């Protein structure tokens, strides 16, 4: 009887091990990353995350290869040629951050026609045959105001720091902020352009401060929170709740204030590791999963409790990052279905 039971467990264990490698279908497939630009810390972190996560995936035999390519110049024609080369190199999937939403559509279509899975993220393409993992910038603006409305149900005065004038991202985040403010008791008393840079934001905020009433909070677009804090401190005004954008200097300032007087805020942005999310999505598509064509990038939000941990892993001059796992990708896919 005992031996039969033993035998049973052994066969059960065998069945489990044979059932485990679900992703074995993609072990012979190779995925390429087509990147158009590597000249700032966000893109550098993006490439590092890619090589870290895909390196492990290749070692584990999930995929055969996952090579990253960056064009030597940030030009759509270069990237189109790069994608055509990838078709010739025989990749099964191409993950790309595009130089232009439309100008590489021709090359993307060629890839699709050759039976290649194309997944675009961050800089997405409009070609219908490709998958898109887009950033919902409007939601980014809304989330800031939602957090503030929870903290201050009675409302108050808001200062809005915007990005670079005339850029689509700036319009979207700002539109999200304004839409959500209409649902609350907040009032936007001033608005300046900080160009997503600490020094520009500091100058702009210092310029508008004398004309403003007392501020409850500052809504930002990332890269401008530290500059705003400096300008407000220099004017000897009480520090409002400044929403941060995951930059290392912003997090460091926040941690300093938290240690000194229990300062509370939130911080959100897009993690450069979104490239790894795109990798897993491509892997899932190759694996035969049913993935909708339009997915949304989750925000990386840093709360009061997670601040120290996030700050520790963020290099100076960089931005907080997170690498996505297969499970994260599955969750994102499920969320959009």
């Amino acid at each position, binding site marked *: 009887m005992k031996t039969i039971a033993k035998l049973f467990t052994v066969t059960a264990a065998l069945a489990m091990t044979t059932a485990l490698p679900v992703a074995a279908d993609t072990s012979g497939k190779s995925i390429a990353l087509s990147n158009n630009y590597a000249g700032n810390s966000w893109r550098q972190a993006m490439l590092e995350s890619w090589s870290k996560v895909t390196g492990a995936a290749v070692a584990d035999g999930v995929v055969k290869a996952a090579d990253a390519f960056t064009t030597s110049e940030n030009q759509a024609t270069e990237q189109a040629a790069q994608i055509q080369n990838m078709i010739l190199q025989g990749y099964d999937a191409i993950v790309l951050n595009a130089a232009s939403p439309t100008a590489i559509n021709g*090359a993307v279509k060629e890839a699709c026609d050759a039976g290649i899975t194309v997944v675009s993220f961050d800089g997405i393409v409009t070609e219908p045959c490709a998958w898109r993992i887009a950033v919902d910038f409007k939601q980014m603006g809304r989330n800031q105001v939602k957090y503030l409305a929870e903290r201050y149900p009675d409302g108050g005065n808001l200062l809005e720091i915007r990005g670079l004038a005339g850029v689509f991202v700036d319009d979207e985040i700002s539109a999200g902020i304004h839409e959500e403010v209409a649902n609350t008791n907040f009032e936007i008393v001033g608005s300046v352009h900080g160009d997503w840079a600490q020094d520009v934001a500091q100058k702009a905020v210092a310029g508008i401060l004398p004309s403003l009433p007392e501020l409850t909070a500052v809504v930002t677009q990332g890269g401008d929170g530290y500059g705003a804090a400096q300008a407000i401190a220099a004017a000897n005004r009480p520090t409002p709740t400044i929403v941060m954008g995951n930059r290392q200097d912003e997090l460091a300032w926040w941690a300093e204030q938290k240690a000194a007087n229990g300062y509370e805020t939130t911080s959100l942005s897009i993690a450069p590791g979104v490239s790894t999310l795109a990798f897993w999505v491509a892997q899932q598509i190759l694996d035969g999963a049913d993935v909708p064509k339009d997915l949304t990038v989750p925000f990386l939000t840093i709360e009061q409790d997670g601040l120290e941990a996030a700050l520790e892993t963020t290099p100076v001059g960089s931005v907080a990052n997170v690498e996505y796992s297969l499970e994260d990708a599955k969750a994102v896919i499920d969320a959009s279905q």
Partner: protein
Amino acid sequence: MTRDQLRILLPVLSLAVLLAAVFYLQPRTMSYFGLNLLFNLAIPVALATIAQMMIIMVNDIDLSIGTFVSFCACVTATFVHDTPLLGYSILAIAILAYSAIGAVIHARGLPAIVVTLGMSFVWSGLAVLILPSPGGASPEWLQTLMKSKPPLVPMAIIAATLIALVTHLFVKRSSFGVVLQGVGGNERALERAGWSIVKLKATAYGIAGLFGALAGMALVGLTTSADANIALRYTLLSIAGVILGGGEFTGGRVSPIGAVIGALTLTLAASFLSFLRLSPDWQIGAQGAILILVLAVRLLVSRREER
């Protein structure tokens, strides 16, 4: 062998060597499908290179061709697609404007490099006005033409051969082409012989404008939509293509067949480096190194010629 034949030999050889290397690195390219993908984006570059060659032929240089091609691409993806008549008239006006610039440069004795640099901002501004955010669509016939799959020989090769032959016949074999070369060779002699240099230069610039517009259209046919910055790289690529193809900056010494081969070589060089898996940080440098290598060999050959 004549001088012209010797001059064309080097670009042909460098293309052959590069092509052999690419075939070796990536045997998949050795097919109808592979050759088309390798060379289809070289077609607009080749057209832009011919445009640049027309300007270099009359001893000038054009720094606005990249933005002009971008502008024409934007017009093609918007007006030509939506209201063909208006679209083609805009392109025709742009070509006339190009020709007028040539006339002004000669009549006022202005340096072409400065005027065309200034014009590059004008074209770029117009392109952004027409297409503030990337988009538009390619006219149906253009897309069908650029993506057509003729039997045996890929479209990219047919188009390149056609461009080379037509411009060769015009520049090297027609009497008017020879006169245009003469503008670069000896302007004064032509003037004494009764030719109007202003008219000749305007014609050369006008033909350049025509090929620039064709480049923009071909590009949209391939990409299926446009972007105001789509062809900025073409300015430098076209100059490099002319020189690589055996042309010279002065004296009206250009070779249309060489220029097309130069454009193909430059496009192929980028693919070659990418197949080599060279780090992108080194790619621009390596591309330059290939260029310098070919030019150095050419210098050696032309020295021997003089002896």
